[in-house]
Every structure is written in C-alpha cells, then in structure tokens.
C-alpha cells in the first residue's frame, strides 16, 4: 500500500526539515513500510540526477560589473541626507551643467573647474573615495596621479573633509577634494604649479563662486555656492596649512 499523504513529510525528512519527534515517528513507520522506503529511494535518485545534470549558473561578468557600478550610488544617499542637499540643488546643477556645455570648444580652466563642480553635485559623482580621514583620502590618489595632493581636515574649523575624486582638467587627470560647510559643498581642484604662481582670481557664475590662487607648489581652484566671505576664509585655512607644511 502507498502513503501519498505522507509524501510531503518524507520529502521534508530527506531535506532535514522535520522536528525530532516527527522524524522519530516517521522512521519507525519506515522500518516496516517498503513502499515509503522505495519512495525515498526514488527521491534520492532525483536529487542526485539534479546534482549531476544541472550545472550551477554563474552571473555573467557584464552583470557583475553593472551591479558593482551601483555601489557608488549606495554610498551617496547618506551623504546627501547628511548635507541636506535638496532636490532643487540638482535642478540648479543640471541647468548649470547644460550652460557649461554650451560654451563648447574654447573652454578655459575656469570653465572646466566650474563644470567639474556642477557635475560633482549630481548623484553619484561627488566622491570616488568618501572619507573624513585625510590619511585615507591622500593615499587613495597613489598611482592615480603623478603627484600626491596635500589633504587636510578642517572639521575643527567647521570645514570637514568629505572625500576626494579624480577629475580631468586642462588635459590631465587632477585631484579633487571635497569639503563641507553646513549644507554647502566646496570642491577644491589642485595640481602642481608648472609656470610659477599664476596669480589669483575670483569669479561668480550662476550663483557659484570660483576662487583661484597659487602657492609655490600648487595651483588651486575652489568652487562653492558658499558665501564669498566664508569661501575666502576657507582659502585662508588652506593657504596657512600649506605654508605650515611647506618645508617638506
């Protein structure tokens, strides 16, 4: 005789899903039921057939890459929340980005720096390395740039370091550092000064301030929607830190 009503229990028994009491009860039934024992054998045969004949599938590399690229976005929401950057900022950024593009061919460094700032405000573009630790951000540039940009953390002065990323300005990869000031972001792009000090400049476009200065070692550009006074204060902090670190 067969025990079709027992089949789910027998499957669960093979799957190791029965509680001790149920298992003991079923085993004492199996001891004198050849039908159910045969049933178990057929299920074991099915199981080994599946193991032998159905190859494990691997996610294709293209899919793996696509999912990995989502990772960068994964880190963004927290940062965006912490900075309370509203959706309106993204709209402003998008408008600015389009204007920046329409300038077309003869882009100046200031254009490129400004565009880089606006692009960085789009989700997922702000940082490649997100850290408030200068000793994490600075080594991150190793092997990515042919110089090691000075990285500071001015959290104690209200300008915390948020991270860094690579940019491409003036036909070469350059380092970009991101600092925060309340809900505002400051992008600092810097590269070794090649033709001595190139002078200082200030520019305002579409509500963003662009500051430029040079130290004996580095050419600096800073962009932010921060008020000009505070952005200048930040510039002073950077200049002081640089001259303090100068005799290297």
């Amino acid at each position: 005789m067969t025990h079709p009503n027992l089949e789910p229990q027998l499957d669960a028994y093979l799957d190791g899903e029965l509680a001790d009491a149920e298992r003991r009860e079923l085993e004492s039934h199996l001891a004198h039921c050849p039908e159910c024992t045969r049933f178990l054998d057929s299920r074991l045969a099915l199981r080994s057939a599946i193991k032998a004949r159905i190859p494990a599938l691997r996610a294709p590399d293209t899919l793996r890459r696509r999912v990995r690229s989502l990772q960068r976005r994964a880190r963004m929401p927290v940062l965006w929340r912490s900075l309370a950057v509203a959706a309106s900022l993204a709209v402003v950024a998008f408008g600015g980005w389009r204007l920046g593009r329409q300038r077309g061919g003869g882009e100046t460094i200031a254009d490129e720096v400004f565009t880089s700032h606006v692009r960085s405000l789009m989700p997922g573009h702000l940082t490649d390395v997100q850290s408030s630790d200068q000793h994490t951000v600075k080594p991150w540039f190793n092997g990515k740039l042919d110089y090691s940009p000075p990285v500071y953390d001015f959290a104690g002065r209200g300008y915390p370091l948020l991270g860094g990323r690579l940019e491409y300005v003036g036909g070469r990869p350059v380092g970009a550092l991101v600092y925060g000031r309340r809900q505002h972001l400051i992008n600092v792009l810097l590269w070794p000064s090649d033709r001595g000090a190139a002078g200082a400049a200030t520019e305002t476009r579409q509500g963003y301030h662009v500051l430029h200065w040079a130290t004996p070692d580095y050419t600096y550009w800073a962009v932010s929607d921060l008020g000009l006074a505070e952005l200048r204060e930040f510039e002073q902090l950077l200049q002081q830190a640089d001259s303090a670190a100068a005799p290297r």
Partner: protein
Amino acid sequence: MEFAAVVLPHLDAAYTLARYLTRNDADAQDVVQDAALRALKYFGGFRGTTGPDGRAWFLAIVRNTAYTWRHRQQGDGLVTQFNEELHSDAGTAADPAAAVDLRQAIDALPLEFREVIVLRELEGLSYKEISDVTGVPVGTVMSRLSRARKRLQEALT
C-alpha cells in the same frame, strides 16, 4: 552592513533564480540589475531579519522583480518564447540528452513549483528561507516542493 557585502556575494544565486523564472539570459540580467537597484533603494529596510547574510532578503527582491517583469511582458502581449539557448550549455553531463530533459522538465514546471525547486535543489535554501523569499507559509513550501518533485519524476519516466 554595506550594501555590496549583502548583494554581491549572492549574485550567482540571484541570477540563477532570475534565469529560471524568466527562462532567458538577457531578461534575467535585467531583472537582477533592477532588483539590485531596488535593494539599494530599500537597503535601509534590511535589518537581517530574514537571515544575517541577506541572501533571502535579496532573493525575495529578485523574485518580486521577476514577477513584475512577467506581468509587464504578458500585459504587452510579449510572452517570452522558450529559450533554446538556456539548454545549450547542458551538454557537460555524462548523458547530455538526459540533462536537457531534466532542464526542460524544470522549465516546464508552473512558476510556483519551479521557484521552490530552484531555491531548494539549486540554491539549498531551508524551508523557512524559501518561505521568506516567496512569501508563502512553510507548510505550503513543503507541499509545493513535494508536488514539484513528483512532477519532475513523472516527466522523466
């Protein structure tokens, strides 16, 4: 816990489930990518309640995404054709014909049977985890799995 640490280790399992649910490689990739995006969006909701490593949590999202995809396909009148390509790499077993037969038998199962077979036999999930992924009670998982195996055996004899 990092999003990537929860999702990336289970990408093979996610792809396997999606591939058997959609029966198509390109659709399976789209489903998994879409699921990963959703996982990202709802990652704040991951509390490790469905197992500490997030496998069941992510597979549940993959399954729901595949079901949504299926509804959309049917709504558009684009019922995906049975995909021969899915069977093309089955020839590694000792008896290629039998391998194809078994795979076809799994593919021919109704969706609710197919998913429990894949989750149990290919991915090794417990009944509780399968219940978490599919949203049906453990007792239903148990009876579906038993009926699914019965169908496979019938198809192979």
